[in-house]
């Protein structure tokens, strides 16, 4: 089926129904109807539907058999000797992997089922680590088991080019990292560097946008979490989060100029926006008081944080050079950049300057950063005629306003007025934006 779009089955079913009507009404000829039918393989719909149903039945049947086998084993688990237990659980894992590889890569008869079986094999591998630890009475930190699981999963991901296996590795390793960071806040943090060295290349190798986005998120989130444990919350939201945002956004701008990785540009910018939105929002609450805080009392958290800022500043200097050379930059980028600066600068200054500004300025600047970010998104939505930016900006603004309101005012009557005003404003803004889009479409036509 040659098309440049991913065609849904629902579309094909509707098209098949409509083709008959068009032909009856004389809108298209028999030859044209036949050509369209052939192009979209409309006569295969029934057969594909049967195949899908059969596949679903196989999966349900296999799941039920698997559940029954598991129950049988569980009921007799204590009677099974340790060697037999290990043999059984390893056999389950190997069966999943081997059967999956055969169906996916060898016979290619059921690639999806095969891939699913390999993923199942990796999940069983993770469970096996826990079971073996139990059999031999090994009690260690839970994150050691998770890291072992992640290593096995990423090796399999690379071997068979499996994005779900990479996802398992990333999620499991991140959870393990959070546990490790809680126990070792002053130890050197390898995790973000490992993610950058292992998971990012995988995403590029497989050209997977979800894997790329999750890798960036894992890098930024791990630095934010580690900074939170190693220093204080304000360092986490006020320094680490903006650092991640600056780096990823600049990375996205540079990817946009590349030939092979343009598809990664927008996801990188979205991840960056999430971090600065989170950082600015958290820093905008009034409960921070940095007067008695020494964020640099323990310094290990500075290493990964500086590793975010250093390449970010290099990349942004390159971006500014291109702007000075005449390249245009979006309001989105301006909004993110200035938001990051507004959040990070006062937090850094409270610790560096002798006449340091107090928490009041962090709160003010963070709130301004929230407004700047919203403004950047909303203005960009008008320039790009894109709803996603508009609603992201408007909803974030509404969140910030209502949060401020709940923080500083508790009167029920005023709450009611503000809620109603926010709701009406949202509706009016949405309607106004849709009208604007409609006018622009009419102008373009």
């Amino acid at each position: 089926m040659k098309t440049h779009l991913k065609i849904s089955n629902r579309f094909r079913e509707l098209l098949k129904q409509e083709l008959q009507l068009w032909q009856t009404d004389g809108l298209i000829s028999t030859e044209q109807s036949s050509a369209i039918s052939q192009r979209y393989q409309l006569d295969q719909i029934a057969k594909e539907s049967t195949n899908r149903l059969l596949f679903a039945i196989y999966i349900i049947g296999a799941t039920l058999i698997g559940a029954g086998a598991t129950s049988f084993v569980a009921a007799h688990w204590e009677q099974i000797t340790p060697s037999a237990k290990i043999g059984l659980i390893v056999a389950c894992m190997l069966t999943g992997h081997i059967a999956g590889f055969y169906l996916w890569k060898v016979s290619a008869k059921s690639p999806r089922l095969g891939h699913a079986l390999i993923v199942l094999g990796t999940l069983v591998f993770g469970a096996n680590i826990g079971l073996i630890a139990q059999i031999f009475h090994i009690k260690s930190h839970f994150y050691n088991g998770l890291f072992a699981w992640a290593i096995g999963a990423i090796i399999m991901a690379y071997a068979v080019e499996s994005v779900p296996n990479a996802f398992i590795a990333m999620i499991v390793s991140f959870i393990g990292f959070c546990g490790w960071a809680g126990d070792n806040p002053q130890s050197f943090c390898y995790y973000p560097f490992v993610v950058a060295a292992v998971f990012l290349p995988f995403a590029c190798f497989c050209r997977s946008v979800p894997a790329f986005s999750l890798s960036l998120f894992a890098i930024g989130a791990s630095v934010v979490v580690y900074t939170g444990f190693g220093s204080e919350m304000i360092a986490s939201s006020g320094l680490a989060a903006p650092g991640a945002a600056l780096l990823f956004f600049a990375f996205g701008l540079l990817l946009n100029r590349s030939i092979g990785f343009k598809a990664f540009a927008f996801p990188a910018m979205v991840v960056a926006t999430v971090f600065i939105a989170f950082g600015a929002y958290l820093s905008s609450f009034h409960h921070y008081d940095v007067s008695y805080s020494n964020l640099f009392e323990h310094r290990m958290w500075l290493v990964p944080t500086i590793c975010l800022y250093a390449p970010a500043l290099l990349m942004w200097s390159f971006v500014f050079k291109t702007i000075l050379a005449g390249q245009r930059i979006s309001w989105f980028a301006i909004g993110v950049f200035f938001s990051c600066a507004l959040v990070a600068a006062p937090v850094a200054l409270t610790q560096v300057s002798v006449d340091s500004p107090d928490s009041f300025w962090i709160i003010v600047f963070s709130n301004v950063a929230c407004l700047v970010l919203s403004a950047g998104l909303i203005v960009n939505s008008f320039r790009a005629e894109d709803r996603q930016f508009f609603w992201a900006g408007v909803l974030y603004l509404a969140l910030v306003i209502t949060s401020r309101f709940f923080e500083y005012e508790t009167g029920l009557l005023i709450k009611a007025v503000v809620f109603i005003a926010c709701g009406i404003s949202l509706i009016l803004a949405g309607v106004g934006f849709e009208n604007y889009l409609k006018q622009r479409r009419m102008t373009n036509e």
Partner: protein
Amino acid sequence: MNKRLILFIVAVAAQLFILAAVPAQKIHTRVTGKTILLKTAPVDPYSVMSGYYVTLGYEISNPKGLTGWKEGSEGMPVWVILQEGSNGIWNAVSVHDKRPTVPNDCVMIKGKVSASRWRIEYGIESYFIPEDARDKVARDLRNNSREAKAEVKVDSSGNAAITKLIIQDRVYEY
């Protein structure tokens, strides 16, 4: 053999290697180690169970009064010399901060200083109990903590692995 198959085999082998590495030391200790009996010491009666594991304390975990003991930093490795008593229970004789020479009738067990800095942990403080036996074992241990013993295997490097829990004449082996 094509490249895809080779990579797949390498990945499966890596997972099997990880699974083998998890219990490798314990298996080695169980196979090559000498069997000794250690007397357990009472632990917090309200937290005998920790998830799926029963928490065990030992008389040899308390090094106070032992020759060579001085309070160390958390995680510091120590080696403890054990000698068998007349009742078949092995007791601590001395503690060393470097691997010592082991007398003929003694056994050396390796441990590390706990977070509290005045106890030693040997990696045998947890024993997995199946769900249906958990309540029974926890109650037995709570009521007879002074009469509980653990059968442990110790290899030539001092690594230990618990094999049985014995309370009076009842043996719990999982």
